[in-house]
């Protein structure tokens, strides 16, 4: 008894109820899903075998990963410049910018998605204006294709890129940059060799966050993709609700889960994830 008491930090007792809850309410259902993937419709690895038999599943995976990667790069680039501007501008302007950012962060994804149709759709504001000015004769197809999906997703993800980057940039000691300039580096050199490496944890954190969130995107591709951009989340929902292939859905969901975990693991080999997520390194 004493041995247990010694090896077990009393803190564990305090978090025990919470841990039990997490195990019961989170791990249980996940195991249930994984179980479904090897038992429905019949026991065995049939659902996983589909991955090798049908190239369409692989194509859906590839579409999903491609769109998520482009979304990640696009929103981190834009988010980086926004965060950079916010850190370096006047306090008053910074709070304006933060307010605008948070307002768009809080607006429902449906509203933000449909607004793009109003703006860039076939008879949208932009196309109408360009046509009215005589710049184009036929409306430009911004929406109902992959470009539309990317515009919608990058726009939705920008606040998720800005917030981790902002936290990271604010915690930097600006005197380091001054020292670099003082030692003769140009502004560009200072940025590339001092500032950028220092903000790397922020970049990694926002990239991971965006990539993982994008993997589950469903509404935006369905509305802006014109039916031609099929991502894995929508496919899973169809298998659950329409075609009743719950085993396939569970298999795909399991693969997504392990894919994300594997990604986190690989990242952790190269850097301290705790630093990325704001803990002390």
């Amino acid at each position, binding site marked *: 008894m004493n041995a247990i008491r010694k090896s077990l930090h009393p803190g564990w007792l305090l978090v025990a109820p919470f841990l039990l809850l997490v195990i019961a309410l989170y791990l249980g259902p996940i195991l249930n899903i994984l179980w479904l993937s090897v038992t429905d419709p019949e026991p065995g690895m049939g659902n996983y075998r589909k991955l090798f038999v*049908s190239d*369409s599943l692989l*194509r*859906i995976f590839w*579409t999903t990963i491609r769109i998520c990667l482009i979304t990640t790069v696009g929103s981190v680039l834009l988010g980086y410049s926004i965060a950079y501007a916010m850190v370096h501008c006047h306090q008053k302007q910074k709070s304006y910018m933060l307010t605008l950012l948070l307002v768009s962060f809080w607006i429902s994804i449906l509203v933000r998605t449909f607004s793009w*149709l109003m703006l860039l*759709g*076939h*008879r949208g504001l932009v196309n109408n204006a360009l046509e009215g000015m005589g710049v184009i004769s036929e409306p430009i197809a911004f929406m*109902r294709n992959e470009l539309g999906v990317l515009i919608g997703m990058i726009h939705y993800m920008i606040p998720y890129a800005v917030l981790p980057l902002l936290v990271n940039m604010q915690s930097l000691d600006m005197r380091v940059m001054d020292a670099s300039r003082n030692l003769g580096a140009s502004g560009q050199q200072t940025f590339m060799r001092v500032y950028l490496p220092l903000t790397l944890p922020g970049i990694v954190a926002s990239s991971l966050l965006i990539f993982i969130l994008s993997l589950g995107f469903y509404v935006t591709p*369905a*509305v802006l993709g*014109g*039916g*031609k*951009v*099929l991502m894995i989340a929508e*496919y899973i929902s*169809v*298998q*659950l*609700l*329409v*075609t*009743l*292939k*719950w085993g396939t859905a569970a298999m795909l969901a399991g693969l997504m889960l392990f894919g994300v975990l594997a990604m986190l693991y690989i990242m952790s080999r190269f850097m301290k994830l705790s630093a990325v997520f704001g803990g002390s390194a």
Partner: protein
Amino acid sequence: MQDKQFMRETLVDGAKAFKEGRLNRRGFLTLCAMTGFASAASFPGGAEAAADYIVMWNWGGQSEECHGGAIGKPHEAAGGLPLRFDTSGPLQGKIKEMVDSGNVTADVCDADLFDAVALGPTGHLEPIDYNVVSKDKTLPNYALEHGVSIILYGYAFVYDTEAYGDNPPNSWADFFDTAKFPGKRSLYKWANGSLEAALMADGVDKDALYPLDMDRALNKIKGMKNDSLYWGSGAEAHSMCVNGEVSMGMVWQNRGRNIEEDTEGRYKLVMNQALAMPGAYIVPKGNPAGREEIMKFIAQAQDPDAQLQLLDCLGMTPSNPAAFDNIPEGQQPYAITSAMNIDGVAFNDPTWWGENGGDAVNAFLEAIS
């Protein structure tokens, strides 16, 4: 979602306890307040299934007032239970989940007849009692063991009159002919109707569609892929036409009328070769109001007057042959079973779709994405 489900279950248990006298009124109201049950509209399914109502699980919109007026009122007047709605949409997966979980909160689903074929044999549905419901009050092939067709809806197409002037398209062959009729097209994303239209365009007779030749249909659809958009909801199909994104669009036939009105006649509906789909009432296994009660309700829905009211209110076409002759003049061009349309219409085979629908939808999705 989980929270909502939990609240709903708590409330249902509370409502049952209240009814049986195990919980007093104050206790029940406290429970309602605790679970955030503000009004009857919040959780129609759960609370009311326990409190002696018939709960119809449908797709919301106008259908609440329409079904309420056409079927609910006369059913209640004849001594039946009052009608309430759960408008979250009875997709096959949701019905299966509801029955499997043992927490059935809906009495009747406003679904497709092929759902009855897909879910019936696996024990998720109550069989229809044809001593109460009449097989003669619907089309001959549309009274199945686990579901009966009440109304029909259909896949037809609209075209832009300004694009095609004097030589308008009149068949699916024209719809798929982008050389003769240039312009974008829109098709339904979940394969229904789109596959049949492609086969008719490819020369298959409308009465010889089933079993569907999937390869042939998908080839036809892939051939037009670069000129096609695909819609997943009626509103999306509507906006694709009204915004001029497509010159021809497959639509649900009752939407066709709205599109004609919203574009002031610029887009026109073509009912030739429309695919008639049997909408059906199906009953989840162990429905709370009981099988006997719900069969009386379904029998009420077979009444020609009820069906004509639904036609007037929603544009859904009667399936009861006794109502065909009474379709009003103004609805004739839009109703599937009206004298002017019925001979040109193709009829969906719910058995084929129920047995093969899942694979067909996946194959279609893979072809268009």
